[in-house]
């Protein structure tokens, strides 16, 4: 159990001298608090597994330090780091029973037999593996095998953190849901720091209380699911989280107004000193744009289609070259295929070079 600090941590598979743009993990400084449930979210190849392997010690970082409770453990090997990790595909020790598999991490560390038995029984109970404890692990299904892998990750109660590297990839969707809820419950029960890597936003948002979004080797935002939704710190976060993703439109922003094609969109805050020469965009989630009947005061859009998601309808529209999604009220119909867009000013954000700009009140 520990707080984990990453200090200017970076890794390149090409060595420290490689150009920084090629780093798999670009310099990051952040803190993982003890007992937190974190999700590391990002598309494939964004560096999340690299970051995980650096924390667990499978990879030695090219640069920077990792501190567990303030103690530098960067040079320590995985065995000495006191960390647990569960991999994408189940890893089972063929010759052992399920119980022996669960006991393996404890046995290797010389834990007394009585403690091992107690701990294995507890984890077996929590993961519903009790009936299998004395059976050979190889005869079980992929689901059960991955549960054993999860169990080996959770069996030690003194670990600094448990890392999960997309652990539910091989599991059926139905069981996936159950296991994820189970992990969440285990997190509450066992008071362990958990870091969960995934590229599936639903998985991340349901599991974690803090979601860390990575993009192109960088941590672009870390916050609660609500924060990521309401106030994406980077256009990538806006686009990646939410379905459909955030609308991003190039605009001219001055004071409390954004201009698109000569139309003025009101903003809630004032943006007076935007960096000169930066690419300025506004971002607004489809939930906060509404299609209404065209009016001269509104931005006009061409409707391409309307997706009915059952609970809510989204209109896919086009403004000039830009594609947008917008909420379509149940009563909305369009006679000529055009519509006006009504923006909710409190949810329109301004981005300079893809980064969120905080306006003045």
């Amino acid at each position: 159990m520990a707080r984990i600090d990453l200090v200017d941590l970076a890794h390149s598979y090409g060595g420290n001298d490689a150009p920084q743009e090629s780093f798999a993990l670009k310099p990051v400084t952040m803190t993982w608090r003890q007992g937190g449930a974190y999700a590391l979210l990002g598309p494939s190849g964004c560096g999340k597994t690299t970051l995980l392997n650096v924390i667990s010690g499978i990879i030695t970082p090219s640069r920077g330090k990792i501190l567990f409770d303030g103690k530098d453990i960067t040079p320590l090997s995985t065995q000495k780091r006191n960390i647990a990790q569960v991999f994408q595909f189940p890893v089972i020790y063929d010759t052992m029973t399920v119980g022996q598999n669960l006991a393996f991490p404890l046995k290797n560390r010389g834990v007394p037999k009585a403690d091992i038995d107690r701990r294995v029984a507890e984890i077996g109970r929590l993961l519903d593996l009790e009936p299998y404890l004395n059976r050979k692990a190889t005869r079980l299904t992929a689901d059960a095998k991955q549960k054993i892998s999860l169990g080996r990750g959770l069996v030690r109660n003194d670990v600094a953190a448990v890392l999960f590297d997309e652990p539910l990839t091989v599991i059926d969707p139905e069981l996936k849901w159950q296991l994820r809820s189970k992990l969440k419950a285990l997190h509450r029960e066992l008071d362990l720091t958990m870091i969960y890597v995934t590229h599936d936003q639903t998985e991340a948002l349901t599991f974690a209380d803090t979601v860390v979004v990575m993009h192109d080797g960088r941590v672009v935002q870390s916050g609660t699911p609500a924060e990521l939704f309401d106030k994406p710190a980077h256009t990538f976060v806006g686009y990646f989280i939410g379905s459909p993703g955030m609308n991003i439109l190039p605009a001219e922003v001055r004071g409390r107004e954004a201009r698109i094609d000569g139309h003025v969109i009101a903003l809630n805050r004032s943006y007076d000193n935007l960096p000169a020469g930066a690419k300025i965009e506004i971002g607004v989630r489809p939930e906060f744009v509404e299609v209404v009947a065209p009016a001269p005061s509104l931005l006009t859009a061409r409707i391409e289609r309307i997706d009915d998601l059952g609970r809510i309808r989204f209109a896919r529209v086009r403004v000039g070259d830009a594609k947008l999604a917008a909420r379509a009220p149940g009563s909305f119909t369009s006679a000529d295929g055009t519509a006006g867009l009504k923006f909710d000013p409190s949810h329109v954000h301004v981005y300079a070079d893809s980064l969120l700009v905080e306006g003045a009140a």
Partner: protein
Amino acid sequence: MDKTVNQKAWFLVLPVFLVVAFSAVLPLMTVVNYSMQDTFGNNQFFWNGVGWFKELLDPSTDLGGRFLASLGRNLLFSLVILAIEVPLGIVVALSMPREGWTVAACLVILALPLLIPWNVVGTIWQIFGRPDIGLLGYVLNAMGFDYNYVSNDVDAWFTVIVMDVWHWTSLVALLCYAGLKSIPEAYYQAAQIDGASRWAVFKAIQLPKMNRVLLIAVLLRFMDSFMIYTEPFVVTGGGPGNSTTFVSIELVKIALGQFDLGKAAALSLVYNLIILIVCWIFYTVMTNAGVERKVQAESEPAAEPKPAAALKPVPALEPREGVA
């Protein structure tokens, strides 16, 4: 229900049937025929029934004594080389690099002994071990060991065993290496996370995953060493005395040295039967041990055809009996 019946399909099986008949069944039947008869040359044969077989299994007769003694020597030889080559092969495979150019270098060096013909291996060691001009023999004698494989039983055995280990450990090592390479990296990472020692990694991951290739290695090495002929024949000629006369050497002595076709035929049939039975036992025991772990309840039928495959190499014995 409305399957077309077409007996012409049998013609498609005919070529295989003919090839197997001429390459395996007919030679084998010839041997069976010889084993029931006695001959005094001139192509004259006399019926002897199971006489040769009775004699073969009775240690008090000349034939039985020679056969059982050589069989004992052969089993001891196979046991010793398996006990050396299998662990040594595993150790070699474990200490090989896993990536980089050194892998290719190691593979080539390991493969070299396997590429040398049996006869040449025998000749190499025959010269290598000579006390007067051979490097090994000369150095051993210079170091004060009284080493002479021509006159001393123990030295002859030592030479033959070291030669076989030199020749064939590579095979075991290469098979094990292939087995090791197929273990996904995640297993090693998981073991690291679980705090496993080097020994625990070997016991919990590497050995179980090498299970299948080790089975093949043991089978191949047992069969090969049990049928060994050329190398010891070239090095020691079966001597000194009869101390390195293995079953196949004895067989050739009877068949070609004494031209006792009946005795030789009976011996080769029993020899063949022993190899079949031992392989079958080996295979059943080891696959059962493997199946215990492997079976995923429904994959059982997949394990079924394998015993037949294990018996396949045996027709390769036939040419040897053709000699008799």
